């Protein structure tokens, strides 16, 4: 007895390897889920709405490894603090099971010009305007309007795969179309 309150260790006569494996996997799964929900996670991107910023894969394994894999950080969700030009991941307003990755163009309270028309729109409080970099092939706020910030699931910070494309995702601000108050 080295210390007064040492942790009681189980002494299994015949160590059951299956039980050991199950316990370890449960622990790893718990850690993984918590980290992925609260700190950072990785996404494999599909679709062409964000080229050339991201090049994407075809769905289905091994397609996931041919496209870009990105790191999505969740620290920004603490205070919902974003900057114009960030690339964010959010739940689709028309289908909560699907997530999109687009660039955030305007924050709440901004006045912005919807491209190609002369309409000026004020972004309501609690909402933001998102657009894909590849304008012709992107389904974004030009179709479904400003989205509530509560739908945002994280901010894309780095591309981590393939190795030749490892880089930080840059912020691109559309100064000519957005006027902040």
């Amino acid at each position, binding site marked *: 007895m080295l210390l007064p309150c040492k*942790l009681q260790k189980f002494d299994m006569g015949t160590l059951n390897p299956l039980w050991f494996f199950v316990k370890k996997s449960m622990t790893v799964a*718990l850690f993984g889920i918590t980290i992925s929900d609260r700190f950072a996670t990785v996404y494999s991107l599909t679709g062409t709405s964000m080229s050339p910023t991201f090049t994407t894969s075809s769905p289905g394994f091994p397609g996931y490894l041919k496209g870009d894999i990105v790191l999505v950080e969740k620290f920004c969700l603490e205070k919902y603090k974003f900057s114009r030009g960030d690339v964010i991941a959010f739940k689709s307003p028309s289908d909560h099971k699907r997530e999109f990755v687009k660039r955030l163009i305007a924050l709440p309270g901004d006045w912005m010009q919807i491209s190609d028309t002369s309409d000026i729109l004020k972004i309501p409080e609690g909402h933001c305007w998102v657009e894909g970099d590849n304008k012709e092939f992107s389904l974004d706020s030009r179709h479904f309007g400003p989205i*509530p910030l*509560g*739908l945002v699931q994280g901010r894309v910070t780095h591309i981590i795969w393939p190795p030749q494309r490892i880089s930080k995702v840059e912020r691109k601000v559309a100064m000519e179309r957005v006027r902040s108050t």
Partner: protein
Amino acid sequence: MSTAGSRIASFLRGAAARFGKVPWREIREDAFERAALVLKAACFVHVVNAYVVGIAFVRPSSTVRGPSMLPTINLTGDVVAVERVSPRWGSLAVGDVVILLSPENPRKTVAKRVLGLEGDAVTFVIDPARGSAFQTVVVVLVYLLQVPEGHVWVQGDNIYSSRDSRQFGPVPYGLIQGRAFCKVWPPEAVGLIGQKL
């Protein structure tokens, strides 16, 4: 002088020897085991809270807002149990009380009742306080709209003091954080939160 010096030296030698005898490796292993256990417990709590069932406090300023759900949920002091399975499975029904992030401020969590799912037609009156039975001419503005795909229509039970879909429109389903199914505090109010249409 020399005896004092040699006493100090022998004291230091003794202290160094005792220091070396402390079972540092066991202490370190013990500390790691305990820290790992605490981390595992914290992760377990997070997973249960996010995917199975959680607790929500009703407070006037921060999390779940006050008077909009009277008399179902009190102004302050109530604690409700929120289950996370139904929204994920898409098995919410009209009449459920849900906890959702406010579309006007994502840092605010509000509790409201679902009165329409996607595709449903909802009718609502703006400003019911203005209507009065004693007025000879009663002008009532009744709106009718269809809830768009992927959205829900929410209203507070206390229609006189609630900011809900009548002000900010149908909300996307993705804002819903859980379904409040049971009150757990105060003890005299413990019970299931019923459906009301």
